[in-house]
């Protein structure tokens, strides 16, 4: 399944669900990555990690490893 880590630069997608086995699960949803939200990949750091997403009117940087837990529709 496609995850937030697979998005291309400038690509938008809707979140389907978050992998609740991921160790940072709680923090990821707490900061606003919840099912139904639209996200857009707006920046990548030099080594393509961390990734910055536009979400709920702001920008959030998370590691690729964390983005992999965000599954997309």
């Amino acid at each position, binding site marked *: 399944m496609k995850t937030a880590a697979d998005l291309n630069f400038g690509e938008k997608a809707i979140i389907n669900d978050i992998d609740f086995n991921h160790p940072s699960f709680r923090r990821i*949803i707490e900061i606003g990555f919840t099912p139904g939200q639209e996200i857009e990949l707006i920046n990548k750091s030099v080594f393509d990690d961390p990734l*910055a997403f536009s979400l709920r009117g702001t920008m959030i940087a998370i590691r690729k490893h964390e983005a992999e837990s965000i599954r997309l529709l």
Partner: protein
Amino acid sequence: MNEIIADTSPLITLVGPPNSGKTTLFNFLSGKNFKTVNYPGSTIEYNATNFQQKYGINANLLDSPGIISLVPNSPDEQVTIDSLYTHPKFGIPKLIIVTADASQLSRHLLLVQQLKQSNFNVIVAVTMIDILHKKGFRILREEFSDLIGCPIIKINGRTGEGVDNLVLQIKSDLGKTNNLSNGKLERVETSLHAEKILAQYKEIEEIESQIIVPIAEKKDLESANEKLNILNNALNNKPDKYSLKLDSILLHKYWGIVFFLLITGATFTSIFWLALPIMEFVDETFARLANFAASNLGVTWYSDLIADGIISSVGAVLVFIPQIVILFLILGFLEDTGYLARGAMLIDRPLSKIGLNGRSFVPMLSGFACAIPAMMAARTISNKKERLLTIFIIPLMSCSARLPVYALLIAFLIPKEEAFIGGLIFSFIYLFSIISSIIIAALINKFSKNIIKVEDSSSFILELPTYKLPKLQSVLRNTYASTKQYLKEAGPIIISFSIILWALTYFPNTNPQIDKNLLNGVEYEDAVQIERVSTSYAAQIGRFIEPIMAPLGMDWRIGVSLISAFVAREVFVSSLALIFKITGEEETLRDSILDAMRNAKIAGTNEDLFTPATILGLIIFFVFAMQCLSTIAVAKKETGHWRIPIFQVLIYSGFAYFAAFIVVNGLRLLGIQ
């Protein structure tokens, strides 16, 4: 605590996510009359105050560090949230004011929901309405208030508009008899938390879709299109346009790194070049003061104590203030503009390779000024292992206390005319210490199970705030607070140990008998002092440890100076001055010390004590050794254990000795004395 806080008044606490305009609101409510205090039993700071008199509210107002949820993710947040529920001194707040950024309302309402779920009386102060307006939307305040079930006040952080309404609301809410809105205080359960968050976000999104509407004036086709889009909740969810543009450069794949290096480089250089003249001024002033005291108080033990003990040690503490102030000014400005979060993002990947985190970046950078504020800055790292590892390697960052030591040692090697080469050696030492600290961090990370003893899943989740112009007032305030913290932590330790050190070099032979006949006045005084030091307690300790120093080609005098460098590294220089009993024949203290060093012989021989080999050995020793007592004390405090500071002393100082041994003896094998 302090006189402006009265225990009997009701408590109002200000809460809000980072970057939600909380501090600005606090300043509006408090004026400039507030005190920075620590949470009881911790070093986390918050501001406490009364309301400005003109508002006529009789209540205590507490600020609190930014949080996004009532479930803690770091030790800092744990303390913050515990104290929010029930403050150890003030109890349960009668009223909580939450700030929420209108341009990212749904994220910030989560905290509001959780506070209401805990049964607090809540007022929501909605900020950054202007940004929402720029996006073409506005908030329906009354509907919002009905739907969320608590008063909503719009605040303009720039003009202060809306603060009066907030004050009226506070007054009316303080009239309520109950501290809590409904029955008893209920903490947000961590175990059920995830499901609850999802449900709360659903509710919030439902509310948001009803209360954020497009600004009516735009009645053209474009706005009709916009309206359609709102149904997807898409348009008002766009981040700030200008920040996106700026980020396309500052977070650019290649340019981003260039800017990162430029900005850190500039920060770095200004710590040194801007601070250097001021530091020299402080140094000279205290040297003059000491001289003045010594020459006016006559030849007694207490004149020596005042001049060489007290005045010099106060100078030793104050000499770092310029660097610390400049560092925190620059960091404060970078933080306020929103760049620091970007810097942390850019450096996260390389740092994660050695077990650190993008958030380690600021503490490590601060470490180049002083390890004490640096270790405190590590509190923002939520992952425990990464936080402890960051604290562990901070002493390896070349702090400013090493500067005077390196400056003296390099000046010994390089003649004055060739200052350029000296500068090169300086840069080389810094580069060397950065590279070796990377290697050491990687090694310690490998053995972290044995050294740090904490396993924790690593994460990096960080909001990149909208770029803003920095606010001078808040930057100055933070700089002041950090500087005060340094003075409080390091000051007493450095001063008291410097005085002990002075006593050790002065007693017991306070009045040595020297044959006056063949000596003039100055020579006689020198001879008295040299005799006093070489029969002092310090000398006795030094001779005791001489067997340890001998393999490095050094004697008891360097040994004593190295021991005294444990007080603070720069004390090494003044200790050399004490032990070689420098008198002011040369123009500056450094020249006199250099002179004495060039003439020093290993006891009983005609061999020079200071040679290029021993000097390089000393430099290497200072690169690695864990020497600063204040740092050790802060490491203990920040990690809650003696284990990390003890390991730091054993590993770093052990390695420093070993490396110095290799350098001195290696150079000698190569024929360099």
